[in-house]
């Protein structure tokens, strides 16, 4: 189909081939600037000496051919075509002194600059990719040793910390009255639990002091607390009818005995 169209143009085979390729490859182009750059190469001159007018004609012809082939051209190709048509007219007509804005030459120069810059970047990219490359031409160490991170902690303190610490301890006694000292308190709950476990084994009269828990019978503060709670627990158990309690006289030892039947 393409051949039929171009037969009428009476162009050389080479040109026709180029044109065909151009049109067929339109999808392969990356936008109008890419096409322009490719077209500019057919002028076979230094990009700086390119004829933008000729280039505009080439591009417009390209768009016409693509249209004739019913190739869907993206909008920007057509925008570029319109712009180039405008540029062409500017370049061909003598400048209108009334009109503002950049001259055709300025616009053309900028387009030439854009093409040259794009070409320069393509060349640069090619040179970059042609460099010796890591993992292809030169290589990194094959066996790497990981760096283990060791965290070392050092501790520090100031003399003030030290003195404050000491001051804190030495003044703690001042705070004592305001704080319940749990260390030296044997609660009634604890005593009750302990007594419940013990009374079953004491059918004989036993001194209350014998029921004080280990470690609570030496230090006077602790002994006092343990005695009080144990006595209170005893009374509770008497109330429950599980214990008998007696004291021969004031300040005499308090003695107790189980009411449970020994098993």
């Amino acid at each position: 189909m393409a051949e039929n169209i171009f037969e009428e143009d009476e162009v050389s085979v080479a040109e026709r081939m180029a044109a065909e390729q151009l049109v067929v490859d339109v999808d392969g182009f990356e936008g109008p600037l890419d096409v322009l750059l490719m077209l500019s190469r057919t002028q076979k001159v230094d990009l700086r000496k390119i004829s933008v007018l000729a280039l505009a004609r080439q591009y417009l012809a390209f768009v016409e051919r693509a249209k004739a082939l019913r190739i869907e051209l993206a909008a920007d190709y057509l925008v570029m075509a319109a712009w180039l048509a405008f540029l062409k007219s500017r370049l061909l007509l003598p400048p209108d002194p009334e009109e503002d804005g950049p001259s055709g030459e300025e616009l053309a120069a900028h387009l030439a600059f854009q093409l040259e810059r794009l070409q320069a970047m393509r060349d640069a990219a090619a040179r970059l990719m042609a460099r010796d490359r890591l993992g292809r031409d030169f290589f990194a160490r094959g066996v790497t040793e990981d760096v283990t991170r060791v965290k070392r902690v050092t501790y520090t303190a100031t003399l003030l910390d030290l003195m404050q610490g000491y001051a804190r301890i030495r003044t703690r006694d001042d705070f004592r009255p305001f704080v319940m000292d749990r260390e030296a308190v044997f609660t009634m709950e604890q005593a009750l639990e302990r007594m419940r476990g013990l009374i079953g084994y004491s059918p004989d009269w036993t001194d209350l002091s014998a029921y004080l828990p280990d470690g609570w019978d030496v230090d006077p503060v602790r002994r006092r607390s343990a005695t009080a709670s144990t006595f209170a627990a005893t009374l509770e158990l008497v109330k429950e009818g599980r214990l008998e309690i007696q004291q021969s006289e004031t300040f005499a030892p308090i003695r107790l005995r189980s009411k449970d039947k020994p098993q």
Partner: protein
Amino acid sequence: MSNEAEQTVEESLFEAPPMAEQERMVEAILFATAEPITVRELQGRMPHGCDAAEALVHLSKRYEGRGVRVVKVGDAWAMRTAPDLGFLMQKETVETRKLSRAAIETLAIIAYHQPVTRAEIEEIRGVSVSRGTIDQLLEMEWIRFGRRKMTPGRPVTFVVTQDFLDHFGLENARDLPGLKELRAAGLLENRPPPGSIAALGADDEDEEEIDGDQSELFED
């Protein structure tokens, strides 16, 4: 008395090992690691008082012409096999994902024009840059975000990374092939189209920023 003790401790603390020994240390560290290591990092791993930079000079001289070289990558150092022996390494060759033409061109534009905004890349290429292309380059860690441009909208910029330099065996982004010539030819300028107002007078500022950023990029 206590002061004296402290002093001697400190003195021995800062008495560095002989240079030959420091060279061995740098050798071992560089050898063990695939990634480039900065002088600062080297210094941090070596005993107190060592001069990693000097040891590096000695070491790279020692490896001149060997099968393995000491190379500078940005402000870091690494050991790499000599490129002329690449033919021995077919086994080690890692197939890098083939980059599209768009990706390669975008990469080159970022390398040569950095810091560069997406709009500028598009202006140079004449087509829009797909998100995927940028993503791919970011993912490969060949490019990263630079600081924002001080232009309306404060657009984000892209710059190349140390990995990029390492991959292409560049000591520095200034060593990019043909960079000087391109700059002299004005081809790295972001010339605004004639008649556009927005970019008027912005040229000098941009130029400055490019230089500033390029050197800054490799400082840390």
